[in-house]
């Protein structure tokens, strides 16, 4: 049995109970055994104890990332479940939901079982997301029941939109039967096909085919309409445009059961980051304009967007050191998400409690998994954050197998200095 851990003098942040105060938290037997304001009564503590001073730091429920690509099975040169969850732990995450676009696609209980087996040794909880359609081809429903029984928590054809509206409707209806969350990758492929960056002045100047914001917005509108019509819950992945958040805001006001995420790059960067064909700024959906970025930030603050997810998408030089049009989409995110998100707090846009809601409490609620709360009896999934720790985001220090980040060599502020998974330390700095 692990030695109990006492974290003292930390600022405890728990959006679920509204707790925000300096106090202590005791971890024993993998669970939160005790917590409170001020200092603990020494008599209540076990004799054998590891004490960690959290002065100046925030203690939060473990961060949960709703959207990562762990690349196993099939692309282990980019990432594995072991390396990806090590990156997660280093970034302060205790749980990740991994998308099904592996090779083969996670559209069968056999692939799910393979992921679950590797996940048993991992540095974070891994919640596999199954495919909506076989092979994510958008034609036939994947076996949601069998996938759920094997350990899948949600379904998505992430990376490929479900272009067939009837299939999307049936997927929404059928997912509920098996307790699965349906995650949409909103993209009208007939509008985005062959596009490689946001459509606008910069795509024209660079001679690159553009992806117009409406390609995302049309599909969001369709999926909101289907969610409203069927009455089923819908989660929208990687929302990136101003009109998209306006649509979601209106749908929520009407009572549509929709939740939505964005990624740190969409509130940190704009299409300007593509610069001179920098493939580290290539992802799908693409980086948008300054007005879109401002709208995404506002939506994080006002509750329209529910979660920050990284869309951690590792690629090696084989996929990225190419002509821009040939390079793969996606950037890694697990080890930069927290500092980039903390910038929203420093800007005064959101409170620390709202940050924890976006990075932990809401993701747990959306996915229907444990965690996201600081409460006695909850699993001891915890993140201790030094919000003022400055560091250079260096490639050599990454736990991920891949280096495809536009934030390399940036000075970032705020870092997870301790990550605890079920009472076990998975990261300490």
């Amino acid at each position, binding site marked *: 049995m692990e030695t109990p851990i006492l974290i003292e003098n930390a600022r405890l942040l728990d959006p679920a109970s509204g707790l925000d105060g300096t106090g202590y938290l005791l971890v024993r037997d993998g669970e939160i055994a005790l917590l409170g304001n001020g200092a603990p009564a020494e008599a209540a503590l076990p004799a054998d104890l590891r004490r960690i001073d959290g002065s100046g730091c925030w203690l939060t429920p473990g961060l949960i990332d709703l959207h990562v690509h762990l690349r196993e099975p099939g692309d282990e040169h980019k990432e594995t479940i072991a390396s990806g969850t090590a990156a997660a732990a280093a970034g302060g995450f205790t749980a990740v939901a991994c998308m099904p676009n592996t090779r083969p696609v996670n559209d069968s209980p056999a692939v799910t079982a393979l992921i679950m087996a590797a996940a048993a040794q991992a540095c974070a909880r891994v919640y596999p997301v199954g495919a909506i359609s076989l092979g994510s081809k958008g034609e036939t429903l994947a076996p949601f029941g069998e996938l759920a029984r094997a350990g899948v928590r949600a379904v998505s054809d992430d990376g490929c939109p479900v272009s067939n509206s009837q299939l999307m409707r049936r997927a929404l209806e059928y997912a509920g039967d098996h307790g699965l969350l349906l995650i949409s990758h909103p993209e009208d492929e007939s509008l985005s096909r062959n596009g490689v960056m946001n459509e606008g*002045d910069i795509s024209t*100047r*660079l*001679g*690159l085919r553009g992806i117009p914001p409406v390609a995302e917005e049309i599909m969001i509108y369709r999926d909101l309409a289907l969610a409203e019509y069927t009455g089923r819950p819908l989660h929208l992945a990687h929302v990136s445009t101003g009109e998209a958040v306006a649509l979601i805001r209106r749908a929520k006001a009407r009572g549509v059961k929709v939740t939505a995420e964005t990624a740190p790059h969409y509130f940190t960067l704009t299409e300007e980051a593509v610069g001179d*064909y920098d493939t580290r700024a290539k992802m799908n959906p693409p980086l948008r304009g300054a007005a879109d970025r401002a709208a995404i930030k506002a939506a994080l603050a006002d509750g329209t967007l529910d979660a920050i997810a990284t869309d951690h998408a590792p690629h090696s030089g084989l996929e990225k*050191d*190419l002509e*821009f*049009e040939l390079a793969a989409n996606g950037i890694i995110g697990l080890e930069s998400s927290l500092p980039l998100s903390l910038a929203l707090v420093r800007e005064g846009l959101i409170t620390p409690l709202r940050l924890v809601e976006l990075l932990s409490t809401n993701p747990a609620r959306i996915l229907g998994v444990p965690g996201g709360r600081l409460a006695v009896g909850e699993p001891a999934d915890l993140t201790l954050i030094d919000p003022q720790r400055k560091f250079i985001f260096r490639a050599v220090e990454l736990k991920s197998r891949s280096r495809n980040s536009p934030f390399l060599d940036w000075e970032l502020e705020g870092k997870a200095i301790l990550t605890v998974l079920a009472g076990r330390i998975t990261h300490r700095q």
Partner: protein
Amino acid sequence: MSSGQLFPHKHILGLAQLRAPEIDFILQTAESFKEISQRSIKKVPTLRGKTVINLFFEPSTRTRLSFEIAAKRMSADTFNISSAGSSAVKGETMVDTARNLAAMNPDCIIIRHSRSGSPGLLACHIGASVINAGDGAHEHPSQALLDLMTVREHKGEIAGLKVAIIGDITHSRVAHSNIIGFSKMGAQVRVAGPATLIPPGIAAMGAVVCPSVREAVRDADVVMTLRIQQERQLDPLLPSLREYAIFYGITPEIIALARPDAIIMHPGPINRGVELDPGLADGPRSVILDQVTNGVAVRMALLYLIMGGE
């Protein structure tokens, strides 16, 4: 002659990177080289011992030959690699191709590629100078320079001219380089074509987007029409080439709206009877073959300025 201060560039990736005085300097140099091609012995020793590689990943007759003739008239050793015979078809990446070429110590690589930005990627991984001979829908700087030279020959001065560029602006690297180049040299550039082939951001590049071909051509000093590609019918961007010819082609009736002394340009190859009336292509206003002649002089100037100017 020392050109290092007037022309500090190692690569020619696009007109976006060149300032107006530098463009002017290239044109002056090209004008002074034009006479070499009219001699009976068409060769000067300026680039003797220099190695120039034509690396063409896309088919090209005019541009590749023009660069090769330019290099040979300057006494450089030239080598041609075309996509069919290149290691690209064997799956070699651009970066590996660059490293392998670099290992053979060339002085200049002239590259044409279907992917925008490829010349810059090559330049990052090779010590030699790189000249962009057309990359995707990005830029075609030597074409715009030869167009500028041709207009200057016929009009004397570029500043103050009205230049109409008609056709597929979205996919045309020629249009992009010309919009940048003519704007930098003080001309007013107007573009027109089917709305499906006018991308966003053209105004940001310096052009006025006209709602019709007629409006773009009215009082123009220069009318440049672009090749329309067959495959644009599939995207779907156009109903048919026939419809294009009727509504966007340059005809005698349209050209009558331009200034009486207006010249007609086309980067070639022409789809006769589609974007340009055959009679106009061969008529007195057409400077299309002057463009080809000046192409050699402009490319001699570029090779000289980036390799021989020390």
